[in-house]
């Protein structure tokens, strides 16, 4: 059954859309990430233009992170102060990102930058996540409990402008927090990802935020930043397709609930290993696309109709 998408201006099979949303939602519930890094490429491969894919993907992330945020807020597992620092810098980063996005589109290099960025960042995150997970699993096997020291010391502790984040039991410089939010917001609006995939490891390893707080706080920041990015994309490139977005959301939230249920049955280290492997697989796919000889070296880009 085909559904005509008014902004993307083409029809897509409705079950395909629901399936994509469901698969991405499942992964998001399983790993606690937004899933945008998988959704945007999937939409592009289905024939939707990158602008519409990124903008509509952002709206779908709003839905899935909203669902999770409410749950975590109810359980008081959110650090609002930390979340709002991240949110404000995230919005600033988002604005810069959308400006860059528009400029790249006009120069015809948007696809290349998206591919290189996905490859670079996901490759790095994937390698870091997999090695950490393997190390934890190895330690567990040897009988030692993996140590998580919230508030422990690393190079980040040496930075000035410290702020106390009571809920996370942290006393850390505001600079890395704001920098992280800025970077994630920027990346998110250019690539159409919520940034949880980068934020969660960064919060855990760099800032030593306790694991119980990390997911809820990340979701809160993701929700706010992506809501802002959706409105900005709608205002600048008019490329948010509400019909596509709603269909993706319905599949997504159902998938997310299933994923969360399955996720509770698996050990944290195993989940992180699986996530790292998935991220590496996507990075590899982009690498292949960049390097392999294309079937069709020519492409057409249409400026808005006269």
């Amino acid at each position, binding site marked *: 059954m085909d559904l005509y998408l*008014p902004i993307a201006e*083409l029809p897509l099979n409705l079950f395909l859309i629901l399936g994509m949303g469901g698969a991405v939602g499942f992964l998001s519930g399983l790993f606690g990430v937004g899933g945008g890094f998988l959704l945007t490429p999937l939409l592009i491969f289905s024939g939707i233009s990158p602008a519409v894919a990124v903008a509509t993907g952002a709206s779908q992330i709003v839905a899935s992170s909203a669902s999770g945020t409410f749950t975590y807020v109810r359980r008081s597992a959110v650090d609002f102060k930390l979340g709002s620092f991240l949110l404000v810098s995230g919005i600033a980063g988002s604005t810069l990102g959308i400006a860059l996005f528009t400029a790249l589109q006009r120069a015809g290099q948007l696809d290349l930058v998206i591919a290189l960025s996905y490859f670079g960042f996901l490759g790095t995150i994937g390698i870091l996540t997999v090695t950490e997970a393997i190390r934890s699993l190895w330690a567990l096997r040897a009988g030692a409990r993996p140590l998580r020291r919230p508030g422990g010391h690393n190079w980040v502790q040496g930075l000035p402008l410290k702020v106390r984040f009571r809920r996370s039991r942290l006393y850390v410089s505001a600079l890395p927090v704001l920098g992280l939010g800025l970077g994630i917001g920027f990346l998110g609006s250019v690539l159409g990802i919520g940034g949880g995939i980068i934020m969660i490891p960064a919060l855990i390893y760099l800032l030593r935020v306790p694991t119980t707080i990390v997911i809820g706080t990340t979701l809160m920041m993701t929700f706010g930043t992506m809501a802002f990015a*959706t409105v900005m994309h709608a205002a600048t490139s008019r490329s948010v397709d509400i019909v596509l977005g*709603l269909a993706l959301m319905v599949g997504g939230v159902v998938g997310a609930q299933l994923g969360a249920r399955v996720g509770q049955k698996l050990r944290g280290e195993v989940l992180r290993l699986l996530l790292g492997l998935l991220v590496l697989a996507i990075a590899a796919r982009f690498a292949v696309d960049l390097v392999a000889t294309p079937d069709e070296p020519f492409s057409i880009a249409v400026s808005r109709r006269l």
Partner: protein
Amino acid sequence: MRLVVLFLLSLAASPAAAESLVTVLSAEEIRITSNFTGAEIAIFGTLRRDAQTVARSGPYRVAATVIGPPMTATTRERERTFGIWINRGGERLRRVPSFYAALSDAAFTEIAGEALRRSLKLGLDVLPIGPWPDAAPAPRSPYEAAFIRLMSERALYVEDAAAVEFLTPEVFRAEFAIPANVPIGTYRLTIHLFSGGVLLASNEHEIRVGKVGFEEIITEAARDNPIAYGLLAVFLATLVGWVAGVVFRRD
């Protein structure tokens, strides 16, 4: 039924001159709704001769062009640079049709000479798509050739020399397809009658392609009230997320 009535009326009221051409379309408006997957338009026509018409040397030939709204397209080519494929060269094509179809009942080169075909834009090889469409013809650049090839692959540029069929020596029928990813706007359909390479008569029609109903409301909202539209998208997304959390809540 309506077609038959129109034919009869046209037979009754026509000026005494050389051949005349009467044509009608199966639809002059394409409405895009939520289950749109493309459309087909049929053209019916009749040619009439009267006592004063000169005897023609060759058989009658009918050819038609369908030209969609203009757009600006940039064709780019990827080249291998430092091991990866990057868009390097490109050519901007201004005011090219976003949809083009050339239909006839015989090979285009048989129907008319190149100069005449160029002035009528009859045929992909004479379609003016260079950077300055009104300039003198020049050999196609690789970008222009690639543009035509890519548009043909998407079924947006079509050339069919068997699309027109004569049902009787005076009555013909033609058909062309509009794909699902077609641009919105006004399409110009021109039907020509030839004989022995000479243009005898032409008719013009307009086809409007537009979204209606829900799709139209959405597109106009996105275009005219973008911030409100964006906020609505965010509101709906938050609502869906919240409802899902409530529905699936276990505690």
